[in-house]
């Protein structure tokens, strides 16, 4: 390689870094701006939005106000409840169904797989009118149970689809060996198969969790009451009420972003390797 060629290559890589760095800034700037200003006094927010909080401008007034005047902790609890329980159910029932679909040949198995896969492409929201009527009949409006059931139904199709691929890759010898030992089909699944596909389950978990946590539609329609309000709905209504109180608005937004940010710091590698490996299949 000649020196001039290497120089050219370096310059080109520099430009690539410049472009990526530029876009990274565009992606992060709005979020950083809100978080930074949530710690500043009202005058500092307006006079110098780009400055970091310093000793004179630092204040937690927005946060204390949000915590005092809204039930934001309750909303967090509600969101956690209607995310974690459906997540567990989707992973458990999804893995069980995926195992049955990939392991056993039975009449109608292809049709059943297709029926379940339909939910990947057709959004569950389109059935909202009927879902609400069912919930009214079952007396479940304004309960956590309504959201738990709908989110479980929402997450299952994609979970089953992805897990079927992974469970299909478990080597046959392993299953046959276990069967020769006289193990029951149910124990075979829980004690051997499930531990084997744990990495795939983790990937599916992230895919399943984010749309549930971020959903506004079903909380708005099925559980708008104060006791079951989720964080998205709570923040939306709080901001509508306190629109002119910039400290509170910025603090509420930061509080809503924080849990996902923290989770992302821990799980981003898992999520992204899942995305990039699952995507091509």
């Amino acid at each position, binding site marked *: 390689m000649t020196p001039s060629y290497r120089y050219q290559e370096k310059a080109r890589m520099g430009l690539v870094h410049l472009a990526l760095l530029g876009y990274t800034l565009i992606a992060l700037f709005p*979020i950083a701006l809100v978080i930074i200003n949530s710690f500043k006094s009202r005058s500092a927010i307006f006079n110098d939005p780009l400055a970091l909080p310093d000793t004179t401008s630092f204040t937690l007034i927005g946060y204390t106000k949000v915590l005092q005047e809204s039930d934001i902790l309750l909303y967090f609890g509600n969101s956690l409840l209607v995310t974690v329980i459906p997540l567990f159910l989707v992973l458990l029932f999804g893995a069980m169904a995926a195992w*049955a679909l990939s392991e056993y040949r039975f009449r109608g198995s292809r049709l059943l797989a297709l029926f379940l896969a339909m939910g990947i492409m057709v959004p569950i929201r389109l*059935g*909202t009118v*009927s879902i609400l009527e069912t919930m009214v009949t079952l007396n479940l409006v304004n309960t956590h149970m309504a959201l738990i*059931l709908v989110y479980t*139904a929402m997450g299952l199709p994609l979970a089953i689809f992805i897990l079927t691929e992974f469970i299909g890759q478990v080597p046959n010898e392993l299953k046959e060996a276990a069967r020769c030992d006289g193990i029951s089909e149910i124990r075979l699944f829980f004690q051997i198969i499930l531990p084997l596909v744990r990495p795939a389950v983790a990937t599916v978990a992230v895919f399943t969790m984010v749309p549930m946590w971020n959903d506004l539609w079903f909380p708005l329609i099925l559980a708008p009451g104060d006791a079951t309000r989720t964080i998205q709905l709570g923040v939306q209504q709080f901001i509508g009420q306190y629109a002119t109180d910039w400290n509170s608005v910025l603090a509420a937004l930061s509080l809503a972003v924080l849990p*996902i940010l923290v989770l992302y710091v821990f799980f981003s590698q898992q999520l992204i390797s899942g995305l990039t490996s699952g*995507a091509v299949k």
Partner: protein
Amino acid sequence: MQRAFPWHLIFFLAPAVLIYTVFSAYPLFDTLRLSFFTDSDSGERSFSGLSNFATLLGNAVWSGAFWNAMWNNTQFFLIHLLVQNPIGLGLAALLSLKGLSGARTYRTLIFLPTLLSVVIIGFIWQLILSPLWGVSENFLYALGLGQFFDAWLGKESSALITLSLISVWQFIGIPMMLIYASLLSIPDELLEAAKVDGASPLRIFWRIKIPLILPTLGLVTILTFVGNFNTFELVYAVKGALAGPDYSTDIMGTFFYRTFFGYQSQLGSATMGATVATMMFLVILMGVMAYFYLIQRRLTRYQL
């Protein structure tokens, strides 16, 4: 030899199939069915054939609102298609370059907004674009573009485009990741061979990489389409259920919500709501079918 009844099969399948059927598949079919019914004032439901569809498409008030939402939604989708996916492709192409350091950090950071709630993102941008705060105005002045600043979200002519671009900003991570994964799966030998033959990087990109990742571009297009024609949160968070100013940001999701739930003086109607949902279902179905029959079938032959 008599075979035992496959109890284990029932055990494994029943929970998932039951919950999915009762709370996802059945409601969808029931919603389609409800679009052929009408509720009387006393709350009695009776079969009314296609009359809901006749109202939706024939009555001037209804059809005006319906086509407005449909056209706005189409624009919303086209902006995603023409801005989000090309930028996503560009970022993926840069990230997949050989010998780029820090690719992992870049993609992690650029993907972050995609994970955040649409509601929160909507509010964040509303603040940033607000003339009250003046952050974006000062920023444009610093670039010497100050005269272009306007209250974009408040104007009929620009509100929809602005909302579309906010959504593009948030979801660019999805096309970027999918295309990135697809670019990484192209065998090195193929690219090396082209290089040895003297093809320039740009030519390799257009003539080799793009044709090979066409199936992924098709997938990204259909995912964008389904997502866009079923979204609701961003418009609702920023503009409310009325999707102002003067319905200029009304899309199918907000139109569906108002029809079903009612707003201000108009009462909500379950059956008209079901009719709007059925139209949304037909649009999405047409998109998905077009994808499977036209695009996918044509593209598979390029697959490695």
